[in-house]
């Protein structure tokens, strides 16, 4: 389970991260600190290098140069699996939910609880009751409001409910650092609110959140700190409270 993190402590940092694709520099010696319990928003125009940076930090891409430091120790991430093992999870929005399965099956997908008979390794019988119980406890703790956790395929639920399930799953799997790509994209006003308050709740638990978003009002409402990327460089890194939508947009386009 999650090791208790102290709020504000640096849990993961990137030093001088660079990545080029041929002549294009997607990331140009970026330094970044990620702190427990803090919501960090990365903003920037399309092609500014946000996605590349997040992919490097979550193990999907290996950088050309630079160091990654997790809890004071230098690490190398060559796959998302290694990142998982170090408590780093990415919420792939609804992409990573099976629309034909119910909430419980989705929360435990790929890591199902099962029991076996005696010393026989197979069959691996699903411990369905246990999973329902655990999923219900976690969803209640996070205050996620969904119609049913068992029996109803998530494909029948609303976008916000699905997003909440995706987030709850990542949180359940004991991650210390959660990356989210456009967590409120394609959501209605009310649903966005629910998802935003869920993210806040997760951060209050000590989880470090890094979100990439184009929705400036959401960024300002939720983030503690904002990093602005432009042409692969980090051009701004400041507390969110000093910013307005206007000043943020100016930084993004560079005027």
């Amino acid at each position, binding site marked *: 389970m999650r090791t208790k993190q102290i709020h504000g402590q640096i849990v993961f940092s990137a030093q001088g991260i660079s990545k080029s694709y041929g002549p294009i520099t997607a990331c140009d010696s970026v330094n970044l600190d990620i702190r427990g319990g803090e919501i960090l928003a990365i903003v920037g125009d399309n092609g500014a290098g946000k996605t590349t940076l997040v992919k490097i930090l979550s193990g999907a891409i290996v950088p050309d140069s630079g160091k990654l430091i997790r809890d004071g120790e230098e690490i190398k991430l060559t796959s998302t699996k290694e990142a998982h093992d170090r408590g780093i999870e990415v919420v792939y929005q609804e992409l990573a939910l099976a629309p*034909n399965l119910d909430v419980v*099956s*989705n929360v435990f*997908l*790929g890591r199902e609880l099962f029991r076996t008979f005696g010393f026989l390794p197979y*069959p*691996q*019988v*699903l411990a369905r009751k246990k999973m329902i119980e655990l999923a219900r406890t976690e969803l209640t703790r996070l205050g996620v409001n969904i119609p049913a956790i068992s029996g109803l395929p998530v494909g029948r639920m609303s976008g916000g409910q699905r997003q909440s399930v995706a987030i709850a799953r990542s949180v359940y799997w004991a991650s210390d650092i959660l990356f989210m790509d456009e967590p409120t994209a394609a959501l209605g006003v009310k649903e966005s609110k629910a998802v935003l308050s869920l993210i806040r709740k997760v951060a209050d638990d000590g989880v470090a959140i890094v979100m990439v978003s184009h929705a400036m009002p959401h960024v300002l409402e939720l983030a503690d700190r904002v990093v602005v990327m432009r042409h692969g460089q980090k051009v701004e890194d400041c507390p969110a409270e000093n910013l307005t939508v206007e000043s943020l947009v100016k930084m993004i386009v560079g005027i």
Partner: protein
Amino acid sequence: MGISAAIATVVLISGGVDLSVAAVMAIAGTSAAALMDAGYSAAVAIVVALLLGLFIGLLNAVLIASIGINPLIATIGSGFVVRGGAYIAINSRELNISNESFLFFGRKTIMGVPMPALIMISCFLIVGFVLKKTVFGQHIYAIGGTLNGSMARLAGVPVKRRMYQVYATSGLVSALGGLVLASYSASATGNAALGLELPIIAAVILGGTALGGGRGTVTGTLLGVILLGAISNGLTLRSVPFVWLFVVQGCALILAVVIDERRQRKETK
């Protein structure tokens, strides 16, 4: 047919399809017959035929999961190869099988229940249990839920390994079906179970399994098999010429797909 339909349900739920099942049934029968003809015991013949089915299933898995060929095309191709092999195994003759212990499978009854029915029911029970109650079954539904199992992969399901298991089992179980068929008819020919893959899929789809994967139950398939069986029995009893069976089965397949299509449209609404 019922035995193959049980495993075809699993393949279809995973979002794939295996059209080589009928050819695998044929080659299992002819290779076993050829071995017994050459003086080997029934046990050896059965084991070799089952391993052959498993091997063909693994080859299908290589084509589909490792090389990435569309399962429809891959298994049509391998089906042709295997069908050819089925004729070659017995030099295109028809072999009569007289080995008593081999005939046990298809012709004996236990407490009044014929062996083929017993084997089929066991297959359905096992497949039903695996699909509904095990980690493997859960993964099969998840893989079938999105195109190429892309979502399941992100969630950490070992998609490739599961596909190998699915197609290998499909080959193995189809071989078992072929052995039962050969035993029941006490003969083996290269054209055994010819064209049977389509009624099998028709039965599965009629039973409520989605053609695109992700949904279905083995109970539904059992009902589909019984329905198709009842239709063909009814035709025989009313002395309708055998050839009409193809027409009826073809119509049943089309009807099944139409029903599936309507159901999907209703769900996405």
